[in-house]
């Protein structure tokens, strides 16, 4: 097994061109980052609100937890079949894929943000109020910076899941590293499948590493306890 996989990975023809590794990786990253951004746009404000005010915690968190149980493949097919008559061209396949990844990313980001805000040292909050800060000032200038390690942890967890799951976009004819899994299976080229799986794992690790570097830069040194 290792022999054919190494052969596949070291063949330059597999790296160049529209169907090559570089193009597919870029497509994969494109879908992943867009999905992460969309999920963050919704989950971060929501998480900040819940963490800061403590309101709606049970309802929202249970609902988000329910999102984790949603079967990605099922949603993908249903969304595609619903949108095929309504969207033209590739959008009919791209939008459903993004919807699936969006649903997948919300729970980790949401829980990271709200638990991060919640666990902020009460004395820090107290001190801020004592200094005369308004609620909003407390949130953005004290709570959020203190919550950054957990927020990052949520984002990294979400990104990992997104990158792994973005492979399903290939089932509905889109690009990304999932193409090697689907095409390899169709032509019974197991070296291609295994290589694709390996590349997805490597990509996930690489992106996580980069996020880790950003975290080092952004998070205040006084908080940097876990990576």
């Amino acid at each position: 097994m290792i022999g054919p996989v190494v052969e596949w990975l070291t063949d330059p023809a597999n790296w160049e061109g529209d169907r090559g590794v570089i193009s597919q990786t870029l497509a994969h990253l494109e879908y992943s980052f867009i999905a992460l951004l969309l999920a963050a746009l919704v989950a971060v404000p929501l998480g900040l609100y819940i963490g800061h005010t403590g309101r709606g915690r049970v309802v929202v968190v249970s609902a988000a937890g329910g999102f984790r149980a949603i079967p990605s493949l099922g949603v993908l097919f249903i969304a595609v079949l619903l949108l095929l008559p309504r969207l033209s061209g590739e959008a009919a396949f791209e939008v459903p894929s993004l919807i699936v990844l969006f649903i997948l990313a919300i729970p980790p980001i949401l829980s990271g943000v709200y638990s991060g805000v919640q666990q902020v040292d009460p004395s820090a909050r107290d001190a801020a109020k004592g200094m005369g800060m308004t609620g909003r000032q407390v949130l953005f200038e004290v709570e959020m910076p203190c919550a950054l390690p957990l927020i990052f942890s949520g984002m990294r967890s979400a990104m990992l899941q997104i990158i792994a799951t973005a492979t399903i976009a290939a089932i509905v004819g889109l690009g990304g590293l999932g193409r090697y899994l689907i095409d390899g299976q169709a032509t019974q080229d197991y070296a291609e499948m295994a290589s694709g799986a390996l590349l997805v794992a490597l990509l996930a690790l690489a992106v996580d590493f980069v996020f880790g570097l950003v975290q080092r830069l952004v998070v205040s040194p006084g908080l940097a306890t876990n990576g």
Partner: protein
Amino acid sequence: MTRTTAFAAALLAGLTLSACGGDPMDDSGGSGDGGNGDGGGGNGGGAVTVGSANFPENVLLAEIYTAALKGADVKVQQRLNIGNRETYIAGLEDGSIDLIPEYTGALTLYFNEEAEATEPEGVYTELQEALPDNLTVLERSEAQNKDAVVVTSATAEEFDLESIGDLEPVAGDMVLGGPPEWEDRYTGVPGLKEVYGLEFSAFRPLAAGSNLTAQSLKNGQIDAANIFSTDPAIVENDFVVLEDPENLFVAQNIVPLITTEANDDTVTETLNEVSGSLDTEVLTDMLARVSNEGEDPADVAQEFVEENMG
């Protein structure tokens, strides 16, 4: 009883119960669908056991064979939804089944990887040569279920399309949809280019056998699609199957595959009559009734036999 003991007992009970379920992959256990009449078991006293693969068209064909043979007073048992070719050929070899509806092109390739013929008669001859001594095929039907290039009736009208070659001037503005393996397979994008000169603007790989290809064709995400020629979606959406005069797609005539042991004159005559009455259009219509309208294949088969046979 302590909690630990109770828990361990429950776990043990659960494991024991699940072991009683039997192996769902066990084909010869007689637990498959369609134990018609005499139920599981071997070939009792001249009865012919009809098998089928696990997709609706093959089940329908098996029901037709069953109905026809019963009409000729032959004892019939059924063992439907067996699985893929490797599995049911093994069933023919060991006597669990005697007869199964098959497709000439694919079956020939199964026994002879070097098979070359593409049109119906040549493929049938090569098939007869390739079969082992204990198996034989009866007369082939005109009905075929093979790969086809399909367009919407609107597209066909707009560009005056009847055969695949007619796509040549307009393919550059069209998107072709098909299963992922079509991208590199000869009976796919490369073959369409070589044999018919077609160069599409893009190829969209979509999961084969799912409704996705038909829906994408219907809604315009793709302009031409690879759909099997008897797929009910063709009838349902009024698609047009383009003709393949150069036989890029190997002929897949429907043919009864039977063990020489179980074959006799009555069986041969009856099944030849069935094959003579079947053509692609008739089969597609029947399949549409089963898949789109939910009719019972056994009923549809019975009707076919009564209408077409003596």
